[in-house]
């Protein structure tokens, strides 16, 4: 099986990584770069626990090959806070109690941040549509949706 050396910008840092053909972006982040905030859930593009931004757009990192992101930019949950300050979506999800076990939270927050980047003032329906690919088995979603709306109001 082939190996490839790729250059990728992850959370603003330039990284050079050697990856096998069948390594997913998810595995590269967790195992090569030790960025374990991104979670492995279903490994089939359904649960959204592995959501990261690829050039600003949310993707399921289990559905992207590491070799495909050569020359691209990735943002993971570790890259959301800036200068020691949590992102507003991180602050409001804490305030509203939108975190229970926390497994879905990194992917949920990446989807929420990506939504607010493309649509700073979404309706409730638009928030639901944007988060449909992020499954949460604890909260019942209401507090997560409220937290994204609160983040939109404050930003």
């Amino acid at each position, binding site marked *: *099986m*082939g190996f*490839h050396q790729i250059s990728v910008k992850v959370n603003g840092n330039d990284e050079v990584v050697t990856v*096998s*053909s*069948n390594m*997913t972006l998810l*595995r590269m982040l967790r195992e090569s770069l030790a960025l374990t905030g991104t979670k*492995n859930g*279903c*490994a*089939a*593009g*359904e649960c*959204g626990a592995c*959501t990261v931004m*690829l050039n600003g*757009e*949310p*993707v*399921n990192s*289990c*559905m*992207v*090959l590491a*070799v*495909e992101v050569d020359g691209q930019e990735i943002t993971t949950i570790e890259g959301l806070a800036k200068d020691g300050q949590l992102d507003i979506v991180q602050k409001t999800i804490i305030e509203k109690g939108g975190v229970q076990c926390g497994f879905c939270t990194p992917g949920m927050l990446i*989807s929420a941040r*990506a*939504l607010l980047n493309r649509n700073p003032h979404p309706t409730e329906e638009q928030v*639901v*549509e*944007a988060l*449909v*690919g*992020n499954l949460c088995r604890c909260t019942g979603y209401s507090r997560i949706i409220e937290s994204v709306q609160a983040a939109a109001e404050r930003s």
Partner: protein
Amino acid sequence: MTSAHPGLPEFDYVKPAGLKEASQFLAQHAPEARPFSGGTDTFVRMRDGFFNPKYLVDVKGLEGTRVLKIDEKEGLTIGAAIPMNRVVAFAEASRYPLLVEAAKSVASYQLRSRATIIGNICNASPAGDTIGACLAYQGVLNIHGVDGPKTLPLNGFFTGPGKNLLKPGDIVLSITLPVPPKGHAGRYIKLGRNRLSDLSIVGISAMGVKDSSTKSGYKFHLAIASVAPVPFIPAKAEEILANNALNTETIILAAQAAMDAVTPIDDVRGSAQYRKFMVRNLVNRAVTEIMQKLSA
């Protein structure tokens, strides 16, 4: 130990520099080499063991796969590397409302960042959400094969579940949807197990337009997902809608004809009988809603 989350099986990732090289490689290594674009279906099927290619050939860098343009004469062309979200966000795609509605119904936003319409077509799943719209808009596939470029109409492209007319070495570069009739209306009704994000139990693509050449004064294109081995066009229902005064009774007759023509199977998402009833009810609903839009 069996892992609950198996990784991808071993393969070699190949990114050809040019079309000729890509087609030759795929033809020489058929059936061990497989083209892919978004990978959202390919990777799932590889993990599930449905196929196990020795080579995955990335088509996203190839000439002609990154096109997304509208031409006043030729219509809309969508490249194989263009993810569904980009099609939805492309302002000119709003001239093809049925396609936009169908694309938005696929899985989740982040999956649609990768999933492509060409991939949806090449997978040839009877459940493919965007295929019906591409059929209704009379799409034509632009292909590069070992003998160079060629085109194939989408109607007739599907030969069975997961099967199509592509030959070893063929790469679908893009699809062109001709300029749609002025004033047409479309509706995609997807019945899933939940309101958003599921695969379809039944999916109805319907497009209608006022047309003075038919007896009814209207022309309809219908395509139905998940009810036959291939995306299904209920020709008799279309004829009924063209040849009779378009009122509630005619729509009931057309919907019944669609129900009688489909040959669904029982599966985990729904029974064959349920699907048949849903075809009748949802064809009726789709056509009725289009008539309301056309007369608004």
